[in-house]
């Protein structure tokens, strides 16, 4: 551990899925460093390996189809990959918790809200039903659900999508975790609800000790919530840096492409810029840089050799031949 206050350090994480059609390198060498109370955004298109990275941290990859094949996940002083399933259970939902994209399907339809939040206290603090319900109601108050005493007796189908996502957040924060992973927490919601949930996360961030890993493809959300940004493409981290530098001075052509594809109100151009081409098939990855097929600044070497993940000034990192010296 070299960085002060670092609570999570991931080195060269690799997660593969062994499917009938071939092997998918869903996460293919990702490094992450997370400090206490930091908010790190992981950005990328769908299929870039963002969610799999989060599930890998909790070791929730479905075996035998998927497996973490390589790397280290240091949480505080332990490598999670060395822990037994029993030890992992003490961490899940207690020290590291997660909220998911689909509030409609992420809550169990046949249990009350109260029971589902109460469970977290039962597993990690051994609380009985009454104490668990009281704490559950407190959490629901915290995430801004009115009539929390009544809500714990409700079933998920009786709540709206936004309310359900608040319940998910309450559940994830129940044990005051050190790390909260939010996987596209606003994608499935209406725009007005989205901003409410983002506001809630911003408020909670101020009050709690929790570090957040925010997984999203929405750069607007990133700008509001995150301090640091990691950009992923085809299972690899391609750029990392603080949010200001990334937004004002992106290095990687893919990051530039992502930023350019945000519609701007006072834009001079009348057409939205998009990244040309499509994501390559995960079964037939290009040999060199995975972005070479879509890149505007492509060079001869790009298609032949994979660039290394290079450190730059102010802790920034980039994986691109353009910024590799001595070629």
């Amino acid at each position: 551990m070299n960085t002060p206050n670092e609570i999570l350090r991931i080195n060269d994480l690799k997660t593969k899925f062994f499917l009938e059609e071939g092997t998918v390198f869903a996460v293919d060498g990702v490094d992450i460093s997370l400090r206490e109370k930091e908010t790190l955004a992981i950005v990328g298109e769908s299929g870039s390996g963002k969610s799999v990275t989060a599930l890998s941290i909790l070791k929730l990859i479905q075996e035998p189809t998927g497996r973490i094949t390589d790397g280290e996940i240091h949480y505080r002083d332990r490598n999670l990959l060395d822990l037994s399933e029993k030890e992992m259970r003490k961490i899940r939902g207690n020290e590291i918790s997660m909220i998911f994209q689909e509030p409609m399907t992420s809550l169990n339809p046949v249990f009350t809200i109260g029971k589902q939040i109460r469970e977290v206290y039962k597993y990690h603090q051994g609380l009985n039903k009454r104490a668990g319900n009281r704490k559950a109601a407190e959490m629901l108050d915290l995430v801004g659900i009115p009539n929390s005493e009544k809500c714990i007796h409700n079933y998920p189908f009786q709540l709206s999508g936004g309310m359900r996502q608040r319940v998910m957040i309450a559940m994830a924060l129940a044990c005051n975790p050190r790390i909260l992973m939010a996987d596209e927490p606003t994608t499935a919601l209406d725009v007005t609800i989205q901003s409410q949930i983002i506001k809630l996360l911003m408020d909670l961030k101020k009050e709690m000790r929790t570090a957040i890993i925010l997984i999203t493809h929405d750069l607007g959300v990133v700008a509001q919530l995150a301090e640091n940004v990691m950009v992923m493409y085809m299972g690899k981290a391609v750029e990392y840096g603080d949010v200001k530098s990334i937004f004002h001075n992106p290095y990687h052509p893919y990051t530039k492409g992502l930023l350019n594809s945000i519609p701007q109100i006072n834009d001079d151009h009348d057409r939205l810029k998009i990244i040309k081409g499509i994501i390559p098939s995960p079964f037939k990855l290009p040999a060199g840089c995975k972005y070479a097929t879509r890149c505007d600044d492509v060079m001869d070497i790009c298609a032949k050799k994979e660039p290394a993940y290079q450190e730059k000034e102010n802790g920034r990192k980039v994986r691109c031949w353009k910024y590799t010296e001595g070629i």
Partner: protein
Amino acid sequence: MLKFIITRIISVIPILFLVSILVFLMVHFIPGDPVINMLGMEAQPEAIEATRERLGLNKPLHIQYTSFLINILKGDLGTSIRTKKPVIQEIKDKYRYSLILAIGGTLVASVLGVLMGIVSAIKQNKFWDNFLMVISLLSVSTPSFFLALILILIFSLFLGWFPSIGVYSWRHYVLPIFALGTQSIGLIARMTRSAMLDTLNQDYITTAKAKGAPWFQVVFSHALRNAMIPVLTILGLRFGGLLAGSALIEMVFAIPGIGRLMIDAVLTRDYPVIQATVLFISVTFVMINLIVDILYSIVDPRVKC
């Protein structure tokens, strides 16, 4: 909740009504004169007229049906042509045996079937899954009356563990209940397996795991509760199948149940008894499904609204 139960009960009434009409019409569907059918070709014309008069068969159909329905509601199911005894008396003693067989068979099938289905789903595509699915296939393909004979051959004739005839103690029920229930084991096991596989892939299972739920809780609380929803429906339907199918088992094990009474009645053209047994079994079936519907709403809170 109460409102839901009442609506369900009300919705069953038209079905019971239609069932009673069909059972009433059974006698009239038979080609030829129902009275001659009952009494036989060699019956005296005076006897035929007298019976026609007594049964009210010379009146218009709707009046006949009304009195049929009123009599049923009063508990009067007519008189057996063969034994000359009131049908309700014949049925009352025998119904119990068939009910025990059907309930026992459903219990055996649901406990074993659900357990097999869970194990299969957890061990998907591994040895135990394949093994249990072969057993399931055998169980659904073997006719219950054939299985009954095999069970008698092994456990009664060769091993001497269980009696093969009559109903004098709980040991007499063991073989018949297994013979009757086994065919449903495979059905329920396959249903449970696919329902479990489906629920184990749902997002809320990942949520439960991410909460730190132990494996046992994930499978038996979060997944099973959801998987039981489709399985429950099958249980209700199977119960009816077993109640009707118990005729075969009663035949093999010489159990004086309602099924055998029905078969004997069909073979001797004892129409009041046929009507009464068919009515009894189908009404029981409809009522059991009503109970299943209500259970359903307890397992799945979404149903109530």
